[in-house]
């Protein structure tokens, strides 16, 4: 007899009310990414961080028109705005005026506004690309270490230890300071920026590597990996189809949080005088010049603020992203 309670046949389609509103109709499922995105949209702080980031990216992309609209060529000297004896800007507040919205630099009278706008591009470029380098290395190393384990893991773990124990800044200085001028088909500032990206990225991969390794270790133990293996999947399939999609969220989150760190790293290198070659403006470089003119607040404050706002915006956004992807935060 078929008991009235038995409905285990083909008709048991009670939708999980927890997640589905209109039962049965919404055929397209909502992926975790979309859910995270919806959560993110509700997080006003993170969103405003994101907006600032987008704004900064736009500024970086449209630096040239912005500068031609509001300022002067960032490299152009304006001796007329400088007191020839003290070399300090003429006028109050570092020479701030409609002509020079944020004042001018001492000595050569370059327009601080346009230098800061132009500097955004370098900061973001290096921040982004260096992060990509570290994400790339970190992910590959982390996945390999986590997935294959054993002695591979041991070796990669030791390598990460070595990187951790390196006084990174000191090394970066030593390296950047003695970099050759031509190579890899690049020269001059192009090579310099490429080198900076590589060095910064190369030195910060272990942070991502560790996270990816940890995640991979735990993912590897998840039963869906065994499921794939029992279906006869090769390592490549398991790595790329099963594990990597699950790593995307943490990688994205930590990449977002690594970008500001790398921007700070670049600024620190520029501050120590081993950043991008002058006269290309960078925020860290401007700060390092400002040290000599610390009595000029505008010279110190604006590049400092630019770094601060950029880093803060990325941090806010990255933080929100992490919360959005991590249901525990709710």
């Amino acid at each position: 007899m078929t008991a009235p309670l038995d409905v285990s046949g083909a008709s048991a389609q009670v939708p999980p009310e927890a997640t589905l509103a209109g039962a049965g109709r919404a055929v397209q499922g909502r992926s975790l990414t979309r859910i995270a995105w919806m959560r993110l949209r509700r997080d006003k702080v993170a969103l405003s961080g994101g907006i600032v980031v987008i704004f900064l990216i736009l500024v970086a992309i449209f630096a040239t028109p912005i500068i031609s609209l509001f300022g002067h060529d960032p490299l152009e000297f304006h001796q007329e705005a400088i007191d020839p004896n003290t070399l300090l800007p003429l006028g109050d507040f570092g020479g701030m005026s409609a002509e020079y919205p944020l004042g001018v630099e001492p000595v050569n009278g370059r327009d601080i506004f346009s230098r800061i706008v132009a500097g955004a591009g370098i900061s973001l470029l290096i921040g982004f690309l260096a992060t990509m380098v570290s994400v790339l290395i970190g992910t590959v190393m982390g996945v390999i270490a986590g997935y294959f384990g054993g002695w591979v893991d041991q070796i990669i773990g030791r390598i990460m230890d070595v990187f951790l124990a390196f006084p990174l800044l000191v090394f970066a200085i030593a390296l950047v300071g003695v970099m050759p001028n031509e190579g890899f088909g690049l020269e001059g500032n192009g090579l310099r920026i490429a080198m900076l990206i590589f060095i910064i990225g190369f030195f910060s991969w272990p942070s991502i590597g560790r996270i990816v390794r940890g995640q991979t270790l735990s993912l590897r133990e998840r039963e869906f990996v065994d499921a794939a293996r029992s279906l006869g999947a090769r390592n490549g399939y398991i790595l790329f189809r099963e594990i990597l999609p699950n790593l995307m969220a943490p990688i994205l989150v930590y990449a977002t949080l690594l970008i500001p760190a790398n921007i700070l790293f670049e600024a620190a290198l520029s501050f120590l005088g081993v950043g991008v070659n002058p006269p290309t403006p960078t925020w860290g470089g401007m700060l390092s010049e400002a040290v000599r003119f610390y009595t000029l607040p505008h010279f110190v404050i604006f590049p400092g603020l630019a770094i601060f706002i950029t880093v803060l915006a990325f941090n806010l956004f990255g933080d929100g992203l992490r919360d959005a992807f991590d249901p525990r935060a709710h």
Partner: protein
Amino acid sequence: MSFLDVKDLKIHFPTDDGLVRSVDGLTFSLERGRTLGIVGESGSGKSVTSLGILGLHKGGRAQISGEIWLDGEDLVSMPAEQVRGLRGKKMAMIFQDPLSSMHPYYTVGHQIIEAYRIHHDVSKQVARKHAIDLLGRVGIPEPARRVDSYPHEFSGGMRQRAMIAMALSCDPELLIADEPTTALDVTVQAQILDLMRDLQREFNSALIIITHDLGVVAELSDDILVMYAGKCVEYGTADDIFYRPEHPYTWGLLGSMPRLDREPTDRLLPIKGSPPSLINVPQGCAFHPRCPYSERTEGRASAEVPDLAPTERGHLVRCHLPRAERRELWENEIKPVLETQ
């Protein structure tokens, strides 16, 4: 008035997604020396109920209403500090997962001593003696040595024993055990259940045992409360629930269980669908989307919440079906399927 009287207890959690009505109007009572079993599926509000009694539901911005009378005092309206004073001393709790419920950084002894010294002004040495005593009483071999072990050095069963020792350290009059054996193997589960029964007899405390295993309830309970979606759907003595169940959900639970004590049936009789989320409890009778008999109520099932109506001898059932029909269904359709195949 009974020793423990819970009246119309409601515990709701406002969350981003809506109001979670974890416990929605629960009423029951319990005397010293008796055991109440609360059964229900996962997420039906069993744990929240027990935490509510101890005043530990405060996790989020919980809203609690109703009355909880313990030995003549209403815990709901009592100041939090006073409830804290009762916790551990007058009422104590045993949790499901003994590993995560014990602090990993402190020795078992330390944790028992701590529990004892909160309510007793004694020296560490005295408390330690007491802890060793207790560990011995709950059947841990070599208690004097084991008192200095860390929880992770214990096996699952020993941890649960230690947990019980901790709960009993101040001779509580009300003991709540939330799924005390779910994480344990059968053989160990049997040991723990025996232990709890013995200890309850010895201390004459009131015991609430929460579980989703009908077998465990049957082993220990005098009374049984079946919960579904934050509400009590059936409440009665163990005999009522096992031999004269009147709620379709209870039938479903019984039908879902393969039983060792009977000839194996050909098929199990599951309940269709899955339990509702407590944010979106179905309108009317919360069980009606899964209930095979909901059509027989002429639409009332999805419109109004049925009352928890008494049948004879304090057996309470929350169902729209007329009593006679329920009994008929049980006697004629359900019981034979469960017992004869």
